């Protein structure tokens, strides 16, 4: 021990290290990548700043009523009142409907791909779902408006007839067609986020330790018990991440659901079949073309609210995900 301690420094002095922390190339490399990483903060800051500059007069004039109230009168001449409540809740309601519909489908599809199907078919299904994750929202919107709406109306009517006593499926006036409902928009959003959740979940599933699963099977586990005790606990954070990606897209979805929504300022708390409701993003796009300068600032404020909500939801959820990953 003592000998090595005395001889080691001499060797270290004689050798010239090429890749020291002071290598010039490395310095620039690290500077470059840390600048890029910190650009994420800059970007968030810039978005907040520019939206706030535009939205400040409206936020100041409307106060908290902007978020909770439910009147929108922005014509010239009249006293301007801009309150976003129904649209905000509509976005949340549609996103929740979409997530509830999409998550079981996506998880079972990923489960089928990774654990049940033969390798070759699974590969095809994977390619398919990766391709379908890229379906543009405007294409889904087109399909939703002309192809899916008739089918969904049929189902909405059946749901209302058989389960109309349940508040969730209650409709005030069943004789009217059930178009433009959050139910319809929720389905369309679900179609958009299923591929996202599936591809994330599939990746997580296929990265699981195969030895762990084989071990559980060797101990006498059945398919169900392996799923419940091994697969799900080990991949829950990843699945949650996938759902979050979906949620982000669901809340901010604009074009795909614009034409299947009735943007009314009459709040719809939970009756998802009622042809009434809205979404912040769709509202912004719908009003954008004909907005006066004053209303335009109101739309900027709506965008700011949307941004802050998605930022908070995503950050909170990512925190949960990272913590559960650390526990693993």
């Amino acid at each position, binding site marked *: 021990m003592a000998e090595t301690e005395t001889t080691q420094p001499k060797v270290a002095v004689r050798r010239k*290290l090429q*890749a020291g922390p002071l290598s010039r190339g490395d310095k620039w*490399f*690290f500077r470059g990548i*840390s*600048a*890029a990483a*910190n*650009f*994420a*903060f800059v*970007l*968030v800051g*810039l*978005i907040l700043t*520019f*939206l706030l*500059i535009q939205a400040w007069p409206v936020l100041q004039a409307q106060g908290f009523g902007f978020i909770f109230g439910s009147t929108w009168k922005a014509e010239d001449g009249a006293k301007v009142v801009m309150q976003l409540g129904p649209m905000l809740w509509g976005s949340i309601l549609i996103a929740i409907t979409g997530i509830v519909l999409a998550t079981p*489908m*996506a998880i*079972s599809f990923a*489960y*089928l791909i990774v654990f049940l199907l033969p390798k070759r078919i699974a590969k095809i299904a994977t390619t398919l779902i990766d*391709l*379908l994750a*890229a*379906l*543009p*929202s*405007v*294409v*889904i*919107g*087109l*399909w939703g408006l002309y*192809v899916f709406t008739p*089918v969904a109306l*049929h*189902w909405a009517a059946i749901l209302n007839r058989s389960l109309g006593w349940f508040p969730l499926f209650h409709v005030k006036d069943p004789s009217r067609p059930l178009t433009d409902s959050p139910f319809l928009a929720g389905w369309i959003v679900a179609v958009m986020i*299923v591929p996202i959740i599936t591809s994330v979940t599939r990746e997580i599933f296929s990265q699981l330790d195969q030895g762990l699963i084989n071990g559980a099977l060797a101990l006498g586990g*059945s398919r169900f*018990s392996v*799923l419940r005790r091994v697969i799900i606990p080990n991949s829950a954070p990843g699945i949650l991440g996938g759902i*979050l*990606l979906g949620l*982000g897209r669901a*809340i*901010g979805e*604009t074009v795909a659901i614009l*034409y299947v929504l009735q943007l009314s300022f009459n709040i719809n708390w939970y009756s998802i079949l009622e042809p009434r409701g809205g979404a912040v*993003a769709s509202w912004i*796009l719908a009003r*954008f073309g004909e907005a006066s300068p004053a209303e335009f600032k109101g*739309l900027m404020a709506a*965008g700011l609210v949307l*941004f802050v909500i*998605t930022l908070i939801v*995503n*950050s909170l959820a990512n925190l949960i995900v*990272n913590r559960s990953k650390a526990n693993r």
Partner: protein
Amino acid sequence: MSVRPRVQPWAAGAFGLRIQTLISIVIPVVITALLVVSSKLDISLAVIACYFPLQLLTAALVGWRNFKRRGVKDSILLVVASFLSILVLGLLFSVLFSVIGKGFETLTPHFVYQNNIYVDNNTPLEYGGVGHAILGTLLIVLLTTVVAVPLGIAMAIYLTTSRARHLGLVRTITQALSGLPSVVSGLFILAFMSVAGLERSGVTGAMALFPLMLPTVARVAEESLKLVPADLRQAALALGAPNYRAFFQVVLPAAKSGIVTAVLLGLARVVGETAPLILTTNANNGTNVNVFSGGIASLPTYVYGYLGSGYVTSQARAWGGALVLLILVGVLFGLARIFSRTKSTNSKSKKVK
């Protein structure tokens, strides 16, 4: 059957189980089919209300007969998972087939290369097309990609190699940014334009797509860089390579296919984005290759323009545009897949030599 020696002892009874499974599938199908034929029940309703519960019941019975309680749970799991998966496939194929079927009627050579000047709702489909929109989309997305991909990959490198104290915060912010609603991105650039005094053009459209593409690229690239074993990089460093060479010559080639996927997912995220482009670019019926001034058309805004129109030809144009957009996405995916495959075979053949 009994003559063949059993080399797989665990397969004993597998034949009987297969027969039982077959029966458990056939019975609900037959009952449902009879019901549909006899009472003229709606097919989709019959599948949900009759076939699905029956299938659950028969599968559970087979499970109980062979494996008792755990068999029941397993069969129910299988039935529910397959049912939901078929639902997913049904929805997605419905989208694909309706776009391909309806778009194909519109898709002609001149629809691909002509622009939309002098076209109104009553113009027959022989005139006008999406050539200008294809060009515009390619230009805008290319501009976005050129900036977003290097920056996104640099972010991913930082997230995988740095040991900075605020690393978790950077990751959280990047992840949170990937949930940025596309409308907000458009509004942000719009606000920026009104402060900076910019006119709407192709460049502002590309700027509006940039915040959407960046986090996607960074996220997926980070995932793929994480999969490269740390030993590889450490070995390169131990051989005396500086960090940047260790990255470019060792880590990056190892993560190549993942990086390509990152670029692809980023492209796929923005190529069909409609809302930001509606907010930050002016529509244009003519061809414009100048991204710095003037209105510039893009495929999503073209489709959006005809969405919800009452005219038959306009709807046909929307379906045609949607099909072209779909083909564009498909071609991008195919190209990238072929590209990454040839690259990987090349590196293998080098190794053999």
